[in-house]
């Protein structure tokens, strides 16, 4: 066990009832491995949000603390609680076969934000000013997250933003019916008010009235580029690889531009029959906006099938309820125009499914000669976004996808220039951008200060007894209340999802298995009476002969046995355990202990 005489940094979770004397900190791979394997939601979260801890706080009725735990990983909980792509939920143990449906982790995040006390105060522990200055280009999720971390670490941060308001795609990409602007505004403000200077309406570039990158490099100790993906990917058409025809046709437009313009305040219109091409959140957003703008027959055309698109099931269901139809296995190959040059129809080619792509999605292979046409009045194309680099006066080294090439700390090929978020990764999710930006902020800090100031460790806290009741396991996943279908189109900006109230939140929070609790049997004190196995609700307690050891020193699969003379221990399989506590209560020799294991950040 690797213990260090270290003081706690941003550990907000110590509860009043637990004696700090029994708390241990460790960087041992067995602990690290345990947390990574046993808390699947947190491991799945690109920002590493301590999910069980915040749901625990919600279950305790402490929404404010839950909100703060979220903010440690992600400075915009109220925003992400609405629009996150939820990589955590598909990994939730409650959703594993036989366990029911996953916990609504995302919606609970929103509840923590919405339901926290009106007088809630944000907790930040600030470092002494370092005297270093950092410029950040772009006030999107990545820029804001990095600005927050860097200012907390004592650096003077200035953000340069081209648009009139901060938020990036959050402000200019996502429609208001999914993300109300008040929520966004407050959380952005909270993130930036530690002394971050925000200069909006300032473009970085080489044109007149623009700020050149070289100026920033001269004026600041470090520069972070977080401009994201600022352009739509072109739709190639037959004989028109760059899709230039689209620019010429009146009623065809890229969804990215369409939404950007709308959110800048331009009046936008659509025809009665709207075809959307694309399969991501943006495509669905375009379709749903089109319905609200009066589109009557709105269809989404995808290259593969519904099962393979990176959008949550709930989002698809709501879209269908709004009478939007999904049509699969097709790729647009041409636009058919009338004599005025307006779009009349889209020509598609029928696809078959090809192999799997690295990102877990499917390839679509066009079938020669299978073209067909769909008539429409408006075409919106949302097949993705890409980075642009023409604003740089000093070229950066790019990777093979034309995104900025960076090392693990976020450093680019230019000394002192860093990059984060979609500008590095290409179009990704908000939570991925935030997660990456925070890593890069740590990298900048290390570069500025010449040493590592903070490390991640596992904190182990003894827990007096089970925190859950068996009955909690039977609470069904709570449905997200939504506004009535009939009102959606007439009140276009009204938020569709209205959030859990106190009671739904409490119910949903109880569902969390609290995977951060480790139940362990001390074989020295065990009499092998199997009382725990008798009460176990699942196949979670096993008679074992031993355990596999992984190359990193952590423990792997249990070797089970039913032969009495081979039973070395009765063991709780934390992979199966749903932390109900039944075994703890029944053990005659009290050889079962409970500890909470979680990642914390420590100063060094």
């Amino acid at each position: 066990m690797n213990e260090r005489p270290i003081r706690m940094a941003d550990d907000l979770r110590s509860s009043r009832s637990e004696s700090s004397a029994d708390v241990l900190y460790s960087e041992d791979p067995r602990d690290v491995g345990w947390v990574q394997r046993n808390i699947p939601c947190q491991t799945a979260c690109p920002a590493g949000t301590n999910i069980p801890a915040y749901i625990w706080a919600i279950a305790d009725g402490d929404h404010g603390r839950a909100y703060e735990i979220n903010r440690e990983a992600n400075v915009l909980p109220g925003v992400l609680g609405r629009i996150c792509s939820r990589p955590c939920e598909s990994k939730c143990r409650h959703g594993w076969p036989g366990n029911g449906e996953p916990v609504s982790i995302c919606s609970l995040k929103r509840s923590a934000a919405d339901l926290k006390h009106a007088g809630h105060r944000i907790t930040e522990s600030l470092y002494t000013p370092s005297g270093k200055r950092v410029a950040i280009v772009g006030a999107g999720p990545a820029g804001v997250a990095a600005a927050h971390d860097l200012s907390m670490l004592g650096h003077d941060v200035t953000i340069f933003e081209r648009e009139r308001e901060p938020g990036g795609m959050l402000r200019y990409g996502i429609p208001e019916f999914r993300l109300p602007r008040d929520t966004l505004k407050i959380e952005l403000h909270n993130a930036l008010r530690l002394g971050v200077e925000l200069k909006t309406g300032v473009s970085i570039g080489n044109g007149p009235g623009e700020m050149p990158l070289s100026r920033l490099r001269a004026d600041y100790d470090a520069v972070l580029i977080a401009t994201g993906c600022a352009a739509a990917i072109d739709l190639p058409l037959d004989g028109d690889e760059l899709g230039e025809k689209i620019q010429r046709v009146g009623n065809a437009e890229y969804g990215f531009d369409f939404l950007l313009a709308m959110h800048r305040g331009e009046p936008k219109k659509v025809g009665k029959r709207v075809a959307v091409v694309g399969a991501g959140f943006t495509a669905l957003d375009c379709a749903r906006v089109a319905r609200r703008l009066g589109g009557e027959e709105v269809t989404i055309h995808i290259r593969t099938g519904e099962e393979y698109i990176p959008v949550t099931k709930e989002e698809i269901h709501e879209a269908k309820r709004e009478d939007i139809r999904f049509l699969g296995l097709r790729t647009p190959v041409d636009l058919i125009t009338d004599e005025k040059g307006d779009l009349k129809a889209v020509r598609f080619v029928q696809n078959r499914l090809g192999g799997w792509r690295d990102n877990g999605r499917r390839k679509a292979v066009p079938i020669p000669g299978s073209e067909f046409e769909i008539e429409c009045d408006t075409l919106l194309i949302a097949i993705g976004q890409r980075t642009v680099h023409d604003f740089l006066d000093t070229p950066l080294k790019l990777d093979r996808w034309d995104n900025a090439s960076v090392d693990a700390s976020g450093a680019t090929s230019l000394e002192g220039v860093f990059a984060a978020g979609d500008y590095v990764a290409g179009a990704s999710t908000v939570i991925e951008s935030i997660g990456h930006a925070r890593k890069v902020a740590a990298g900048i800090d290390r570069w500025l200060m010449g040493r590592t100031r903070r490390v991640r460790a596992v904190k182990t806290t003894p827990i007096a007894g089970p925190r859950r009741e068996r009955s909690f396991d039977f609470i069904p996943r709570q449905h997200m209340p939504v506004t009535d279908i009939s009102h959606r189109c007439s009140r276009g900006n009204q938020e569709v999802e209205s959030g859990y109230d106190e009671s739904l939140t409490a119910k949903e929070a109880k569902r969390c298995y609290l995977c951060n609790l480790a139940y362990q049997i001390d074989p020295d004190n065990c009499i092998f009476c199997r009382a725990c196995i008798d009460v176990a609700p699942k196949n979670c307690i096993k008679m074992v002969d031993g355990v596999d050891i992984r190359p990193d020193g952590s423990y792997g699969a249990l070797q089970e046995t039913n032969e009495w003379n081979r039973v070395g221990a009765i063991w709780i399989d934390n992979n199966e355990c749903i932390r109900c506590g039944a075994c703890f209560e029944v053990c005659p020799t009290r050889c079962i202990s409970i500890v909470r294991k979680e990642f914390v950040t420590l100063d060094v």
Partner: protein
Amino acid sequence: MNEPLKPVYLDEKLVEIRADGHQDYRSKALPTWCPGCGYFSMAEGFTQSLKRLGREPEDVVVVSGIGCASRFPFFINAYGFHTLHGRTLPVATGVKQANDALTVVAVGGDGDAFAIGGGHIPHAARRNVDITYMVFDNGIYGLTKGQTSPTSVLGFTTPTTPYANGDEPLNPLMMLLAAKASWVGQAYAGNPHHLTDMMAEAIAHRGFSYLHILSPCVTFDKTTRTYKNLGMMVRDLPADHDRRNLMAAMAEATKVDRPALGVFYEEERPTLADVMDGIAERARKGIAAE
């Protein structure tokens, strides 16, 4: 109440657990006792103590009668004899008479020992047969589903005592002390480490050793002799207890409300085998009893 336990790397123990070796004294079949039964503690203690004493399985004979406790030999990797209800000690005496080199352990429950088999106990004790008699006392008949036993408490309600048990429970320790057992100790199923120590000492003793083991019946007695109640009742023998002093042992044995754990009494005197050897010797020399 459960107090928080210090977190430890229990996994480390799991890695080394097979090296322990006491599992070799277990049979392959899983015990059929009810989950949580105190008898598991005894099986665990017994295998641990055989390991500690270095007795080879083939040199050990376990004899039992009828009852839950008497299932014991089935779960032990040693010679076992599951005989008739209450007739444990005569059989064990016969086994020991046949081969002094064997480690002979007789086991039974409180019903087997003190009801049907009660008549045999004083005789096995006073003869000082070099065997160990372990009585697993849960104060109830488990196998016939929960009738009173000789050690059931007053007022205990069971199918055969629907208007409450009115028979004073027997005091086995007093009985055995009175019958001149040469080693008398007491242990508790909920304290497996101490139980193992006691078993090891009882088996090591030369002469008739009697180990009384308190256990709950988790299935048919949910009110009186539970882990919770027993756990609060038991105490250690006083540190200055003199195990050679029969009167002191008697005095401790009378304190039935606070059963003490430890060795009550111990003496060294000729065993049945010694007596038999003595008779044989006198016979060889032609010395007749007067």
